[in-house]
């Protein structure tokens, strides 16, 4: 297991190098000089030259990339042009809020999605099954930011139950923290809940036709036991895969929902960086979030044997 984990970690290196390459070279696709673009049309040539030197743009590309990666490995992602502070610092400061939101959204997705999928499959073609499938179809069709706006309209503006936006850190009180988290988490988690429900239902339907399920039934076991004890175990892997993917998606997918709820996470920071063309910040955020995604996926893979003893990593 240890050897397998190590080899998988080594296997990540090429992907991470490519992720770094993409994050780095993306800004060099800018038509023209990134420094000039960042400063705008009114900038004097001296200011542009200064910024170029500051960002290292006057160096050859290979040197720039090497410098960027070696600093990044030491936790230095350069300086944000508009915030006037280190990119890494700004990102790390925003990470807890985004993390909180992603976890809350994932909870919403799993708590709704998994049981809905299981029950729908267990009662295939029933009214419940039909309703779940229709709601799930709507769930994957409705943009999460629009759902967020509707939730604000109903639950904040209309009923006044939740704030329209903002964020309270968990250190300043759990109840307040959750209160600010509910609407963004629901709007973000709903689409994932829909995906998870569809996926869970499909795997469940596949498993439920297998011989061993028929055997279990013919032994006179109750449908509840058949589903929870026999079927559930065998869909755990596919559910785990979707849930793992969902978490990665949620971490980065919060970009738009964070904007809707004026939620001070990484996503909103990136949107601001995009409007201000703060390239070092964009680069840093891309690198950080993609790396987290890659690592989360590895962790999910390594968790497989815990859920399915037939899978053994040697």
């Amino acid at each position: 297991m240890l050897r397998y984990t190590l080899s998988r970690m080594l296997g990540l290196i090429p992907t991470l190098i490519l992720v770094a390459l993409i994050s780095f070279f993306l800004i060099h696709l800018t038509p023209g000089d990134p420094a000039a673009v960042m400063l705008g049309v009114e900038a004097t040539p001296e200011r542009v030259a200064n910024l170029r030197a500051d960002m290292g743009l006057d160096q050859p590309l290979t040197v720039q990339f090497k410098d960027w990666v070696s600093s990044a490995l030491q936790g230095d992602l350069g300086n944000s042009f508009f915030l006037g502070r280190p990119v890494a610092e700004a990102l790390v400061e925003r990470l807890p809020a985004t993390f909180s939101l992603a976890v809350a959204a994932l909870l919403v997705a799993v708590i709704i999605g998994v049981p809905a999928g299981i029950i729908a499959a267990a009662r295939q073609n029933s009214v419940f099954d039909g309703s779940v499938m229709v709601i799930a179809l709507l769930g994957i069709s409705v943009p999460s930011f629009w759902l967020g706006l509707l939730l604000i309209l109903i639950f904040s503006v209309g009923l006044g139950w939740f704030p329209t936006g903002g964020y309270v850190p968990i250190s300043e009180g759990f109840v307040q923290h959750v209160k600010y988290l509910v609407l963004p988490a629901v709007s973000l988690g709903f689409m994932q809940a829909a995906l998870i429900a569809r996926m869970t239902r499909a795997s469940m339907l596949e498993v439920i036709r297998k011989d061993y399920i028929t055997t279990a039934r013919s032994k006179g076991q109750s449908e509840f036991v058949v589903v929870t004890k026999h079927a559930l175990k065998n869909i755990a892997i596919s559910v785990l895969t979707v849930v793992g993917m969902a978490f990665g998606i949620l971490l980065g997918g919060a970009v738009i929902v964070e904007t809707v709820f004026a939620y001070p996470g990484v996503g909103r920071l990136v949107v601001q960086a995009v409007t201000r063309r703060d390239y070092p910040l964009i680069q840093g955020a891309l690198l950080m979030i993609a790396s987290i995604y890659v690592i989360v996926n590895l962790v999910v893979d390594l968790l497989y044997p815990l859920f399915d003893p037939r899978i053994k990593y040697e």
Partner: protein
Amino acid sequence: MKSQKSKLGENKKWQRLKRNKMAIAGLLIICAILLIAILAPYISPYDPLVLNIRSRFQSPNSEFLFGTDNYGRDLFSRVLYGARVSLKVGVIVVFITSALGTFFGLIAGYFRKLDYVIMRVMDAFMSFPTILLGISIVAILSPSEMNAAIALSVVYTPRTTRIVRSAVLEIKGSEFVRAAKSLGASDFRIILKHILPNCLTPLIVQSTFVFAYAVLAEASLSFVGAGPPPPAPSWGNILSEGRQYIRTAPWITIFPGIFIALTVLGLNLTGDGLRDALDPKMKK
């Protein structure tokens, strides 16, 4: 004889699709949105760009079906025109991702030596959250309709590549490909004549879903200002403008969202239906 047989197969697929009521509903929705987009200049009651300060913030009424916005522009006309942006971006994205995804997928699936390199690059691209990568690319290229389409094509090509590649891998080992090879057919001929036609089914299904993703993603990009710049109406930027007035004029937020959801729903229904009809074995 052979062509007759395959024609029968086609008929059967079409029958299966026709029997799927959900898929037909999806197709009808798509056709309706397409018609709206094409006919927008003829059916919109007002010019979507003309400001009319006197009729600002009117709630939906018989004169302004969907109400008006903060500049007094007719929302109904703006939403109709918005269909053009969404569908145009969607079509361009489908076109580019299908072309690139097929190209890379065929190469990766057929030539084992290139497989590793191509797929690692695709994996790396897929490690970036779609919207984040999309808005970053648009930020670099400058916001416009075309650049949004380019950005989303970069985002979705790896997924199509993966699907085509796995189809190639499945077909590559089959008897008829080996037979063609032993008869001395060139790689180029085998790929084009034998492998490509067999990748089309998964490609068509995938393209329908890419279309749906692209419409959703374009709305998201426009919403944060990384789509076609105002005043040109797109569903995303109407929503973004309306957001500030959600307390006083919620209709500006509600209508464009309904159209986005309807379009994506139509595409998803069609995609599900096509998948079941064309290839019952295939799963998403």
